[in-house]
Every structure is written in structure tokens, then in C-alpha cells.
């Protein structure tokens, strides 16, 4: 049976409502979840059920296009970029193309929501009910924006895509999804997806080696021997954890993320190419693209200070050039700082009012030997003893 798929990334009605399905401006579908982009995980699932031919249509903003283009998913996949109404027009045209090529069924889904659906079961449901169009629904019977369409149903497809997957031309038998579901509306949902993956609650398996129970480390990741990683945790490929850093309580560092010395990352996610500065305390947050989404306070802030949160260059050549420049600049910078510190050193003020009597007092002995020549067994009352360190 020739079943083909149309994957739609974007097409959200109102990005201002908070349900933008983006984190730091990048669609959640392109962001990594435990080492693999969400869209790639959806594609793998489709392939697992024998749906190998698919077209990806997305509306990524131009500013975030470089990152989206770098997302590691199947590059052989036909990929269309369209915005606004053209986005849905492209979906309709793709559907007509599949119909003309003789496909038996077309699966149209928006990512958007991450759904672990049994496609075999859904297609069987579609065939058993002799449906023209089938719609996947959750436990509360709301649409999951996943449809199976008969290629002959061109008007139904047109109505579906022109209504932005909100309306159907005719009633259909809904297919209730029993598997894992995450709507990926915001940063909190993305965080939940990765935590659920770490805790084994869904099929999102870490794309890394388990170096000790619950600690997953990707290819080329570097963890300083003085850093501590408490399970469960995920350190993505080529991520770096510097000395005295602490990665704990289900924290996730995606590929090329970097945590500087002494920084604590607790119950948080660092998106790819994110660098956290030294001595920070990041808890319950999703950090990336110079944005920090605090999950318990439900707020997202832009951080422009590169010492706190920075984004590493996407290209390996740029990163290497940056590291080399930093290495060569280190020694001259230290020498310059040394000279600068010497030149700015201030001489103590010559204040006769302060200096004269104090010096005279300092010259006088504090402890006088008793006239009798017998040493006193007690400390004199005018002597204060100050210890620098605790009890020892």
C-alpha cells in the first residue's frame, strides 16, 4: 500500500497568544529532544510504520533559518518553505501531487503536537470505517491535527487545508489516540517531553551512550573531572561541562551546549549551541537563543549579556576560529591587565591626623610584664583575639 505523508511545521493561528509552538523564535519541531530534533523523531516513527515518502512544509522565520537548516533530520526529504496562506496552499498542492502520482492514502500532520500514534491501527480504523477522511483525537475528543485522507477526496483536502486544519467538509469517525501526547505549545512542553524521555515515559530515547545508570553522554561531549553530573541527565554530542559545574535533577544539555565553571544547572534544558557563563544558578528553565524561559514563573526573558547566556556560532569553522583567537588573546590580555593593575595602584594617603597618634599607640607595648615578675594567668581585658578559621 502506497501511503505518503505531509508534515507541516508551523501554521499556528495566533503566535501572540503564547501558543506559538516556538522557543526563542525557533519552532519546537526543529529543536532537539535528547539529541534528535522532534521532526526527525516523527519521521522515524512514520518510517517505522512503512510510511517512507513524505514532504516537509515549514514557515520558519528568516532570522532562525540558519538554525533550522542545521537541524539534523533527513536531508533527502522534500522540503518546502512557505509563509502565511502560501503555507497551506503548499500543503494542498502537495496533496494533489500525491493524488496524481497514485498514492493510496495520505497522512497529513502538523508538528506541532508530538503524538506517539500507532499508524497501523489508525489506517486500519480508516479502512474499516470506509472513511474519506479520519481524524486523530485525544481523550477529550479534541483534534490532534493528524489526518488520514483518501487521495480522491480533493474537496475535503481543500477544506481541511484552507481552514488551517480546523474544519472538515463532512463528519468522520474520530480515531482516539492512546499513546503518549505532548502538544509542544511552549518551552515547558518541550522540557516535559525531554524529562518524560529520560524517565522512560515515552518513546523519546536519548541519542547517547549511558555511561552510568541514568547519565547519557553523546559523542564528543567533554565533562571536566571536577564537574558533577547527577542522574538522570543528558549531555549531548560535543557539549562541554567545565570544572565545578553541577548538572542535576533531569537536566538536559543538547548538542554543542556549554556550561562554564561553577554553574549549577538544575531541572533545566540547554538548547543547542547555548553557552552558560560561570557561576550561575539555572533552575527550572529552558535556555537557548539568548532567551531564558523560566518554567515555574512562567516568563521568558531575553538575555543580551554574553557573559551570562551566549549563543555559539553554528558553523564549526567559526567556533574553531573563535577558540583559537581566545587562546592567542589570553596571554597578552593577562599581561595587559597586570600592567593596568600596577598603574592604577593608589598609594596610601598621607594623613597626619590618622597617622601620628596611631603610630605612637602601635609603638607602645600592649602586654606589659607585671611589676612583680610573675606572669599573669589570665588574658588582659584589653586584648582581643580574632581567629580566622572555625574551630581548628
Amino acid at each position, binding site marked *: 500500500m502506497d501511503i505518503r505523508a505531509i508534515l507541516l511545521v508551523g501554521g499556528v493561528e495566533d503566535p501572540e497568544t503564547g501558543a506559538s509552538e516556538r522557543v526563542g523564535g525557533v519552532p519546537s519541531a526543529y529543536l532537539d529532544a535528547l539529541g534528535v530534533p522532534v521532526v526527525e523523531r516523527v519521521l522515524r516513527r512514520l518510517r517505522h510504520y512503512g510510511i517512507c515518502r513524505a514532504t516537509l512544509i515549514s514557515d520558519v522565520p528568516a532570522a532562525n533559518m540558519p538554525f533550522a537548516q542545521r537541524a539534523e533530520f533527513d536531508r533527502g526529504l522534500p522540503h518546502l518553505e512557505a509563509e502565511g496562506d502560501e503555507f497551506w496552499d503548499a500543503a494542498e498542492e502537495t496533496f494533489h501531487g500525491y493524488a496524481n502520482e497514485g498514492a493510496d492514502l495520505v497522512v497529513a500532520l502538523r508538528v506541532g503536537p508530538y503524538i506517539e500514534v500507532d499508524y497501523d491501527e489508525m489506517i486500519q480504523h480508516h479502512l474499516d470505517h470506509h472513511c474519506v477522511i479520519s481524524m486523530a483525537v485525544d481523550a477529550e475528543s479534541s483534534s490532534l491535527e493528524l489526518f488520514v485522507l483518501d487521495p480522491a477526496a480533493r474537496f475535503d483536502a481543500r477544506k481541511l487545508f484552507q481552514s488551517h486544519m480546523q474544519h472538515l467538509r463532512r463528519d468522520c469517525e474520530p480515531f482516539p489516540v492512546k499513546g503518549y501526547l505532548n502538544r509542544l505549545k511552549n518551552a*515547558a*512542553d518541550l*522540557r*516535559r517531553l525531554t*524529562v518524560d524521555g*529520560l*524517565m*522512560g515515559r515515552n518513546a523519546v530515547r536519548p541519542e547517547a551512550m*549511558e555511561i*552510568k*545508570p*541514568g547519565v547519557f553522554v553523546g559523542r564528543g561531549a567533554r565533562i571536566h573531572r571536577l564537574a*558533577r553530573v*547527577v*542522574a*538522570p541527565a543528558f549531555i549531548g554530542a560535543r557539549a562541554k561541562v567545565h570544572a565545578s559545574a*553541577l548538572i*542535576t*535533577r*533531569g537536566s538536559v544539555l543538547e548538542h554543542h551546549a556549554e556550561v562554564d565553571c561553577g554553574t*549549577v544547572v*538544575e*531541572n533545566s534544558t540547554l538548547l543547542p549551541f547555548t553557552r552558560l557563563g560561570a557561576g550561575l544558578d539555572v533552575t*527550572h528553565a529552558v535556555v537557548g537563543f539568548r532567551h531564558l524561559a523560566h*518554567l*515555574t514563573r*512562567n516568563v521568558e526573558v531575553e538575555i543580551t549579556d554574553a557573559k551570562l547566556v551566549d549563543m555559539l556560532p553554528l558553523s564549526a569553522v567559526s567556533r574553531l576560529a573563535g577558540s583559537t583567537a581566545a587562546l592567542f588573546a589570553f596571554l597578552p590580555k593577562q599581561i595587559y591587565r597586570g600592567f593596568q593593575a600596577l598603574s592604577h595602584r593608589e598609594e596610601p594617603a598621607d594623613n597626619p591626623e590618622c597617622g601620628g597618634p596611631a603610630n605612637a599607640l602601635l609603638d607602645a607595648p600592649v602586654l606589659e610584664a607585671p611589676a612583680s615578675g610573675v606572669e599573669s594567668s589570665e588574658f588582659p581585658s584589653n586584648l582581643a583575639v580574632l581567629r580566622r578559621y572555625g574551630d581548628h
Partner: protein
Amino acid sequence: METISRPVVVKRMPERMNLKQARKFLKEVQPFLNSDRPQVVFDMSQVRHIDAAGIDVLLHCMREAVKRDGDLKLAALSPQSAVVLELTRTGRLFEIYENSTAAVKSFSSFLPNALRQLEPQVSQGEVPMLGPQAVNANDDGPGASLAA
């Protein structure tokens, strides 16, 4: 992930962990920590009072264990010890399990369900709170025990 099983030492902490008790406790566990790749679990079900000295001992033991490529895990936290660990922000340095058995098993395989709740329902927009934990002490007697 399954690893080659090495002995895991389970040590029940005393009811009071003040300076005096902490020093005594440290003396007792020091031999276990000095072994190669020590795997130690502290059962904190009996702890009713823990102060800075007690926390210091925990950190010292963790440092010693990690230095020798081992690990220290905590189990069956009493409400009192859970509060102090959270207050001093030291709880996040340790893997904390609901009971000693789970903590022992966690050295050979990852047991997500046995871990104390780690995520404060991130999507709910709630401030994470550390509620009183169910104290589930194991049946071992006081003192150290070895589990394979």
C-alpha cells in the same frame, strides 16, 4: 544499563547529626569510603535533626566517594532532613531514592520511578515545593550492611 555489580554499603544515619555525632559517623564510614570505587547509600529515615556539621559530613563523604570514582546516594529522607537538604541546596548534589533497596539497585540500573519526584510539574506554572516525603525505611538494623 547493567553494570558489573560491586558491593554497595548501606549505612543508616543516626537520629541526631550534630558536630559530635557527625564526627563519630564519619569515623564509622571512612573505611568504606577509602575503598576502591565505593558505592555507598546513606539511609536518612531516622534523622530527626541535622545541622551544618551533618551536611558537611555528607559533602565530605560525597567528595571522597567521587574522588575514588564511586558515588554516594541518599535514601528514605525523613521530612526533617529533606527540609534541611533543600534549605542548604545540597539535595541537588545527590541522587535521592525513596528507599534503600531502590538506591542499592540504582547502582546497577537506572530506576526512574524510584527517584524522588524531580520535576515540579513544569507545565503547571507552580512553584516547586518540597512536601513531606513518605518515609520508607528498610528493615536493616542500625549500622552498615552490604548488598551485592
